[in-house]
């Protein structure tokens, strides 16, 4: 079954028609990477799925549930989706362990001991075992972003949204974060991510979505999009980003 279905999503900011009818389905365990020029609506798309922005038309189904229904409890929906942003939005007044276990304790009602054990297990697995008791400002950018990812996967979300999670990082630190994403793919996480890292997109994606002025203009496996793009807009975009 599809984890996510988008049907004819529209979004406007005033007169700015940012999403102009987006249709997309993501299957369980699938990794879908959204590429496209700055301002093409990648982040906006992610934010509508997470209900941070309200859609102006269309329907979004999460594992079959219509989450655009006005009667839906937005907090419950958000608890089912893990999100990582471009800028590390760790809570600076909480230690790493408290950041990671917050949602489990306060939203899902997990026993604090159980949450703690699971969090420490995950942090150790991703090379953050020594940082458990640190505050976020003592961590490097790459470490912070890895903690943010651990926080997002802590409660086993049905879907992970990753919005340009490496674009605020030094090139040196990008690799460690992308390695973590590869691990998640290997474990079977379902992910929708936006990125400007084309080589990474190519290696990790099951499918690429090329967004162009508010529409998914071309969708297909990475070999096709990068090797044999059908649309002139896609060719032009790829030529621009790969010959910088």
């Amino acid at each position, binding site marked *: 079954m599809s984890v996510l279905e988008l049907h004819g999503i529209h979004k406007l900011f005033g007169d700015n028609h940012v999403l102009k009818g987006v249709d997309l389905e993501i299957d369980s365990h699938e990794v879908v990477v959204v590429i496209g020029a700055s301002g093409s609506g990648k982040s906006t798309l992610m934010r509508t799925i*997470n209900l*941070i922005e309200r859609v102006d038309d269309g329907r979004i189904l999460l594992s079959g549930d219509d989450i655009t229904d006005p009667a839906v409890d937005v*907090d*419950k929906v*958000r*608890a*089912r*989706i893990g*999100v990582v*942003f471009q*800028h590390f*939005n*760790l*809570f*600076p*007044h909480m230690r790493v362990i408290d950041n990671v276990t*917050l*949602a489990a304790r*306060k*939203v*899902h009602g997990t026993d604090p001991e159980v949450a703690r054990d699971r969090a420490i297990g995950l942090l150790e697995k*991703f*090379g*953050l075992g*020594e*940082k458990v008791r640190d505050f976020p400002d003592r961590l490097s950018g790459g*470490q912070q972003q890895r903690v943010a990812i651990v*926080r997002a996967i802590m409660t086993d979300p049905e879907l992970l949204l990753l919005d340009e999670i490496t674009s605020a990082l030094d090139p040196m630190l990008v690799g*460690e974060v992308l*390695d973590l994403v590869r691990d998640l793919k290997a474990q079977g996480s379902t992910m929708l991510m936006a990125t400007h890292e084309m080589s990474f997109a190519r290696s990790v994606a099951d499918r690429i979505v090329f967004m162009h002025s508010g529409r998914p203009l071309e969708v297909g496996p990475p070999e096709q999009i990068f090797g044999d793009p059908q649309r002139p807009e896609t060719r032009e975009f790829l030529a621009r980003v790969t010959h910088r």
Partner: protein
Amino acid sequence: MTDRTAGTDVEAWQPSELELDRRLQRRRASRRSVLVALVSTAVFAGVVGWTVLTSPGWENVQQTFFDPGIAAKSFPKILEGLWLNIRVLFFATIAVAVVATLLAVMRSLRGPVWFPLRALATGYTDLFRGLPVLIVLYLVGFGIPALNPEDRVPVALLGTIGISLCYSAYVAEVLRAGMEAVHPSQRIAARSLGLSHAKTLRLVVIPQALRKVVPALMNDFVSMQKDVGLISVLGAVDAVRAAQIVQAQTYNFTPYVVAGLMFVALSFPMIRLTDAVSARMAKREQMGGTV
């Protein structure tokens, strides 16, 4: 992925000649500044002291303001009065903490449905920030009893209410500023985890806001510490009122000086603590230790 910190051979390191020389120079320089500061302070104090002590009216002033006998006699009564001030301060602080937080949260609510609450909170803070504390005390202290002449509400309680009304407005503004200084991405991050609006405020926004405004809040507390002395205008026998009673009997102003010193002593620990906390926070927030 490894995150080991480099440099396990720290024990082997000894400061070089260069560093030892630099430390010596710094010590010399700081000894020199301390000396300069000491001398200039002593000179200043000497000049002020000499001017006052040699002025023609000094004898007279000494008798009416610094009479040791009257000071000793009035001390226990004023201290007893101060105990009332401390109790008023205690309850007013609790009331202010609760009311100010509510006001700040009300003012931070977004969306048209909340307009009435938001407007109410805004009106309240605008009104009570503008009103002099003394006028509020008169209105509450004489207005509330007039509503219901049968029951006698203790004046200290009325004073506590008046002080709390004013300070809730000041503190609410400080808290609101703190909440607005928390970056919006923090709220989004919290909501994305599925935290409700209320939990986001309680667990993410307010703790960070408080941290940002601790020095400002402590300042407000210090100024409230002395403003509790204003309840004497309602006739509550606090430190100021006790001093006034002795003054009326003896025609000597020494009791006021005693009461004043007591208020200073009361606020002194808090003032020092405020300085220490501000310094610590400044140190935590800026990395460059020398600027």
